[in-house]
């Protein structure tokens, strides 16, 4: 594989920008007065692309995911999301952009007092949609991730793999253009990891760009996909 992060920047921009959902250019970030967690990070996430984001612990993966999700502002550099300069977007418009991005956390972040069905339906509920308009779709999606029989179950009763699938279903519910997954296989056994990967691949085939942040080399070796490797805040990309 060839590192592409050090490419000619002008050429890189012209290649990447047109079909890029997200574009980072010389992005740097530090928390408070601490050291820079991310340094001169430049990359694109093209439409319908599939990539792994990897690197050692503390390399800045979670921070990069938070930047991708518009949950954090960079200390420097330019980020464009869906063709718009993030620094120029008023804060009250950010939720609308976030709705175009699905996110899956390593710790699932499910609401424990809501059932599987209610957790998955949450993105549509916050958009103010009537339950009658989405109930069928939610149940169908739950069946698709293999949880058709667990719709009325509360998260504490679910296994790690089931929780992860609920979190994925929730992220997919409103058909995001890009899916960010933070260590989605971190809490599941290898067969379940393989199943989840197939789920992401199928989703990618249907047109969603996927970014999976993972440490799991075995998982990455299963498919030939773009790798974004973070090391001490610097990003190298292997196509």
């Amino acid at each position, binding site marked *: 594989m060839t590192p592409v992060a050090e490419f000619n920047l002008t050429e890189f921009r012209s290649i990447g920008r047109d079909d890029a959902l997200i574009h980072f250019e010389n992005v740097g970030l530090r928390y408070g007065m601490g050291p820079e967690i991310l340094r001169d990070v430049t990359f694109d996430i093209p439409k319908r692309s599939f990539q792994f984001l990897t690197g050692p612990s503390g390399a800045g993966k979670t921070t990069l995911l938070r930047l991708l999700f518009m*949950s*954090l502002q960079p200390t420097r550099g330019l980020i464009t999301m869906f063709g718009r300069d993030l620094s120029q977007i008023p804060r009250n418009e950010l939720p609308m952009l976030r709705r175009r991005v699905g996110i899956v956390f390593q710790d699932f*972040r499910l609401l424990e007092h809501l059932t599987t069905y209610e957790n998955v339906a949450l993105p549509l509920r916050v958009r103010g949609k009537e339950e009658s308009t989405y109930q069928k779709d939610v149940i169908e999606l739950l069946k698709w991730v293999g949880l058709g029989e667990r719709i009325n179950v509360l998260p504490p009763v679910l296994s790690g793999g089931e929780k992860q699938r609920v979190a994925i279903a*929730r992220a997919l519910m409103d058909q995001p253009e890009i899916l960010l997954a933070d260590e989605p296989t971190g809490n599941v056994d290898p067969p379940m990891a393989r199943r989840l990967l197939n789920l992401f691949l199928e989703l990618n085939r249907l047109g969603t760009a996927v970014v999976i942040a993972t440490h799991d080399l075995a998982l990455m070796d299963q498919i030939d996909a773009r790798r974004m490797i973070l090391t001490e805040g610097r990003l190298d990309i292997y196509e």
Partner: protein
Amino acid sequence: MNEISRMRPASNPQAQPKRAEMRVRPTGPILPPSNIQGNALMVVIAIMSFLACLTLGAVSMVRATASSWESQISREVTIQIKPQEGLDMEATLKKARDLALTFVGTKQGTIMDDKATARLLEPWLGAGLDLKELPVPRLVIITIDERNPPDFRAMRDLLHAEIPQAFLDDHRTWVDRLVSMAHTTVLIGTGIMILVFVAMILTVIFATRGALSGNRHIVEVLHFVGAEGSFVATEFQKHFLKISLKGSAAGGALAALLFASLGLWQSRSIATPESDQATALFGTFTIDFTGYLGILATMIVIALLTTLTARFTVMRTIDEIDLIRSDPARSDGLPSS
């Protein structure tokens, strides 16, 4: 149906036995309905509501009593005739009464006879008083039409001109004092109500901040699924509206029940020393229909105030959380990787 669901492989109906479709339970609220904090807030709101309604009822009671006193006093005026040597008291009393009754707005004139006057003075001068031996002023009571009172100044001038010993007392001083007392009571009551409301708003602000802090994980999840601040605020608003409605209804109902019980006790124990003492001190405990309407209005105001306070606090706090979350210079305690 969404794109994903359309493109999913269709299940073969023959391969699997047909199962009954699972029913979804009624959708629960995004915020857990009750916790210890919520129950404590409900009790605080109930107490505040009870105090506010009690204050309102007490003010309404004092106003009613003062107004009744005022009406009783202003229903009559008194002409006082001071004794003087050589003055025919009985004839002067009659003359004063007749002069007063010539004015439009007077209804009836009663001369307080010797017995009535002696009874009036009995507490100070003892029984068996002979009024002829003492220079005691005598009274003529004139009942007046409250809606169309006579011209007191003209009556006073005429009486003074015709009978120099006569003094007309229209009880204006007492009425003014009563009106002033009633106004002071209303002012004090309003002050207490404002204090109760301020204390309640502050309590709700702390409770809302506490609830937000306790449910931070929910706020975070809502943020990640693309919820706008107004949606989160509406969810908290609904939560607090339920709590405040229950609390204010309990407090208001308790206050109304207290007034109703006291009124009932007073009406059942008329002419007993306890009831007379209570009536003399506080007036009647009964509050009228407007009083109960006031209690209802207080309950509604408290519920609305709580809900609005919760909404503004949530909007403000979410804004703060959003700012801190997005600003790496202020993201204290957040993961550095």
